[in-house]
């Protein structure tokens, strides 16, 4: 997936190469680098904007490696999840492994559950939840909804999507 990332380098030579090397090591592809040598952050670091293509697993390891190399990661392309929708769930949401339900979306790499409100009126009663899904594009959002529908149908939970 395509992501953008803002990083900050210490102001000594060779730092940019040091920061970019893990990207290719992890199978990523650098799409653009915006490096303004004359700009500095208040703490005296050099800001760099990266756009790159990398998998979800690779991204997590990239962030770790950058930290190891004293590169500050100040922002990871939050806007990559551009499309959102809300759905309601009604049923035994918690007792049918809520964690697994959320994971079914989060593990896709292209969509996430970004918000969840739960209302539990009583132990034996059905719970209701509103779930906000975000995805990197319209098609991915539709696919995320399909995955969620399949997951909750198996658990006997009713899903109410928007029109």
């Amino acid at each position, binding site marked *: 997936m395509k992501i953008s990332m803002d990083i900050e380098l210490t102001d000594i030579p060779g730092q940019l190469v040091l920061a970019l090397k893990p990207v290719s090591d992890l199978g990523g592809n650098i799409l653009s680098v915006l490096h303004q040598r004359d700009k500095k952050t208040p703490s005296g670091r050099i800001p760099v904007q990266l756009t790159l293509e990398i998998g979800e697993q690779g991204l997590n390891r990239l962030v770790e490696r950058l930290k190891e190399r004293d590169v500050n990661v100040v922002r990871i392309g939050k806007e990559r999840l551009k499309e959102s929708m*809300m759905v309601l769930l009604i049923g035994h949401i918690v007792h049918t492994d809520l964690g697994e339900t959320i994971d079914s979306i989060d593990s896709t790499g292209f969509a996430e559950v970004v918000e969840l409100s739960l209302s539990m009126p009583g132990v034996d009663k059905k719970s*209701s939840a509103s779930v906000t899904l975000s995805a990197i594009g319209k098609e991915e959002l539709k696919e995320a909804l399909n995955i969620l529908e399949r997951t909750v149908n198996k658990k006997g939970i009713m899903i*109410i999507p928007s029109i």
Partner: protein
Amino acid sequence: METKLPKLVRISIVGLGNVGRGVAEVIRRKQEEITRKYGIDLKIVGVADLPGAVVDENGLSEDAITKFKSGETAEDMTTLDMIKDVEHEIVVETTPTNVENGGPGLTHIITALESDRHVVTSNKGPLALQYGKLMDLATSRGKELKFEASVGGAMPIISLIKDNLAGNGIISIKGILNGTCNYILTRMREEKLPYEHVLKEAQERGIAETDPSNDVAGRDTAVKLVILANSIFDRNVSYKDVEVAGITEITLEALKLADDAGYVIKLIGEVDGGGSSGECLKVAPRLVPKDDPLNVEGTLNVATIKTDLAGDITVIGKGAGPIEAASAVLSDIIGIYM
């Protein structure tokens, strides 16, 4: 100046429930106006209900119909004999819907078309089960089979699409086609009362039937979708092809969560043309943004028709009630002669 005599249009009404009696009433109420405006003279020459039929070639009076309904006068003949043997132009079929086998309504419609009479019906069962066969029969006889009252009651949708939107490709239709469900969901949200409580209230007010399952389980909406799928989209589907969920599981908490996020919950029926554009034929509770035209309250029905030229068209109207349904029947009758 030449004065043209109005054209005599003789009608029989089969099924004297609320809708059938409503049709008799609006014809009586509007008779002069219709003659003046459209040049047709509507005359009810026969009515039929469970015990049989009563006929009068000079036109049945209100009194005669009431007496027949209350069982005070003996019947003249059977329903099918009336349809076949009494000379008239239009059979109005308003017996109750039966989606299992079409009920007697199916036989009434077939007999009427085979006897070379036009048919105007509010009965969903025969249309949902045998749409293609019935339309073929009507065409082969050179007669009309009209059914505006079967979907959305007074809300025009079939003729709106076939006549006013002629030339447009219809992409999809979605909407609220059951007033009972809309009433229940509206009241639950407004009064924060649980489903069972509001259902009971709706039954006391005559909005929900004693056995409400047809409405609340989404079956009524599904049958109407089948009629739209076959008549508007030329699909060849039946009731069992519809994916159906009802409103019985909707909780107050869900309505509150929806409300907090700017939505309401409505029972929405959705149908499209099938094929490459999708295969949607489903009834389910859906989140509707509060500012969407589909967010109508109480017992109202609503439908948004997505077209290729005109964009989205939304119609809102009363989905139920004897006079409202009779309004759709009457416009179908007049439509045959326009």
